[in-house]
């Protein structure tokens, strides 16, 4: 095989054993506890889970923008395709304030957020805030930067760009703001776009438009997407591969079709059952998962889903931490139901 071919098979981003701990008054919270995943060039990975499962912290750890209180460990290898450098870079080894990581943020890896209202500062015009990234990474010339920004606004479907450019965030509607946010993120042509609940704050119709926009821009720019969401419907529409997170761990990971048609983990099954279906029996109540997510503070080594699980095995599931089981090459599950050994994972 040529080196080119090997490179093509190597993922753009590999996250290995990512852990994020936060010290609290009453103990250490393991917000993210040993997460591994890979994002391939031009593909979309969905990270799905309830709020508080650590998916946002995981996505933000990639570009080191979590608050100082988060003690992060593990490796995040980023393989740049562009330019001559072709280096493998462990993003976590960089100082979060260093120039190196700043040159990656916004340039190579861009991010869009859930709340487009608060993600923009109300103090400056949309144009000002879009141009900022361009001025740092692409050109020092303000005129040129403005030209790029206007072009990007056009690409995300905002008409009358000249006027819109000088408007403030509060003059935009929610959907418009998210479009502007996307144009800001894509303005430096990144290789990876991290989208943290990009449509949660939007109406359903607007949601569909924004997702459609993201897909078409992915086709045009060829970037990979890490899509963080709690909505399995969005996952089904957008993703190539899915990782289900629960209590700081990935409990199941598979290609999207495999996960939807052949879910293994009781939690994944529960999530799928709680989704409304077209043509389903309307008189029946939707299933829901009993109980609520516990706090991952001073947790003993056990399955975090134990108390809510209908298939739990007493003395096994609540006695050890759960190892990974590979059902097939690309389908991983973390559950004793599928594990050959009843021995605990070595953590």
């Amino acid at each position, binding site marked *: 095989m040529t080196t080119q071919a090997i490179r093509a098979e190597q993922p753009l981003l590999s996250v290995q054993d990512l852990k994020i701990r936060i010290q609290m008054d009453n103990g250490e919270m393991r917000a993210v506890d040993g997460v591994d995943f890979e994002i391939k060039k031009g593909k979309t990975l969905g990270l799905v889970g309830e709020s508080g499962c650590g998916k946002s912290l995981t996505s933000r750890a990639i570009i080191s*923008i979590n608050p100082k209180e988060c003690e992060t460990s593990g490796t995040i290898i980023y393989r740049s395709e562009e330019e001559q450098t072709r280096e493998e870079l462990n993003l976590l080894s960089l100082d979060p304030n260093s120039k190196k990581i700043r040159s990656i943020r916004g340039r190579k890896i861009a991010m869009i*957020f859930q709340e487009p209202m608060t*993600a923009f*500062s*109300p103090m400056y*015009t949309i144009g000002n805030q879009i141009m900022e990234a361009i001025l740092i*990474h692409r050109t020092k010339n303000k005129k040129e930067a403005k030209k790029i920004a206007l072009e990007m606004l056009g690409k995300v479907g905002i008409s009358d760009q000249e006027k819109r450019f000088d408007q*403030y965030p509060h003059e935009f509607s929610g959907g418009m703001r998210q479009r502007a946010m996307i144009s800001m993120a894509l303005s430096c042509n990144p290789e990876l776009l991290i989208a943290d609940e990009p449509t949660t704050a939007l109406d359903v119709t607007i949601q569909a438009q924004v997702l459609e926009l993201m897909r078409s821009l992915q086709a045009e720019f060829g970037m990979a997407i890490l899509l963080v969401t709690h909505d399995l419907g969005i996952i089904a529409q957008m993703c190539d591969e899915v990782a289900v997170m629960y209590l700081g761990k990935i409990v199941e990971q598979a290609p999207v079709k495999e996960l939807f048609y052949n879910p293994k983990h009781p939690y994944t099954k529960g999530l799928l059952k709680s989704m409304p279906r077209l043509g389903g029996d309307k008189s029946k109540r939707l299933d829901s998962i009993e109980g609520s997510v516990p706090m991952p503070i001073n947790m003993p080594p056990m399955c975090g889903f134990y108390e809510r699980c209908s298939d739990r095995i007493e003395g096994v599931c609540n006695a050890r931490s759960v190892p990974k089981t590979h059902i097939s090459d690309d389908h991983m599950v973390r559950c004793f139901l599928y594990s050959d050994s009843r021995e605990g994972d070595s953590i």
Partner: protein
Amino acid sequence: MLQYSIKRILMAIPVVIFISFIVFYIIQLPPGDYVSSYSAQMTATGEVMTQADMDQMRANLGLDRPVYEQYAMWAKKIVLHGDFGFSFNYNKPVLDVVKQYMGLTLVVSLVTMVFQYAVAIPIGIYTAVKQYSAGDYIFSGISFLGMATPNFLLAIILMFLSYTWFGDPLLGLFSNEFVNASWSIDKMIDLAKHMVIPVIVIGLASTADLIRVMRGQMLDELNKPNVVTARAKGLSEIRILFKYPTRAALNPIVSTFGWSLSSIFTGATITAIVLNLPIQGPVMYNALLGQDMFLAGSWLLFMALLTVLGTLISDILLAWLDPKIRTEFRGN
């Protein structure tokens, strides 16, 4: 924007009128009136006014008319002739007394104001960014103490310190040799030296308060998603700090401007009495003690008006700084 300003100014007018009612009411409050105090003064110098004389004088001054007519006369004189009445203590028109002290009062107030913001804003930013650091605790401690210490007593303590360290309690605003001298570089330096204690004393409580407001605002702003967005764009921390949280935190600070003006006047009143500054405080105090009510009332009126003006300015500034209000009036 202009439309907003005009609207805001028009709204202040009824406020001013009501303030004048209250002030006039206060002028009328103390037992006795102008004539009885006047006759008491005459008696003290050996002349005696008969009841008839006093009634005659009341009629001349319109003091026998109903209160609302008296108010109308008082207000008319102020608006048309700038005549605020007559001060007993100083034996000249109130306006002359006011003019005499207004200059230095404004100088002291403005310097204090600049001092407050210049000190409070950087410290507020610092303590928010370095939350829970030693510096944060030290400044928080000082500002708590600053708010809890009555400023007039702080004045005594500082005077005492300056007396023991420099052998000069720095009373007043000028040394003896400069009080009646014409303005010169030396007199300016002397004034600057004498202003240190008053400015610290008058400004400390508000500065302490401003630090806490600024710190609180900064802490709020530092946790906003737009800071994370800026970070995700690849901006450096220092640029983020000044462009986003600081800029946003300054808005509420600006709105304290009018209130701060009022608190400076308040603080200055007592401090000036203790430190014997030739500004409005002691004048007002003596006027109150001597029931020189036209003078006292006029001071109160001036101060209330300045506060209204300060609030007006901060409202307009706030609107001007806030894109939401600014854009509302754009193009209409």
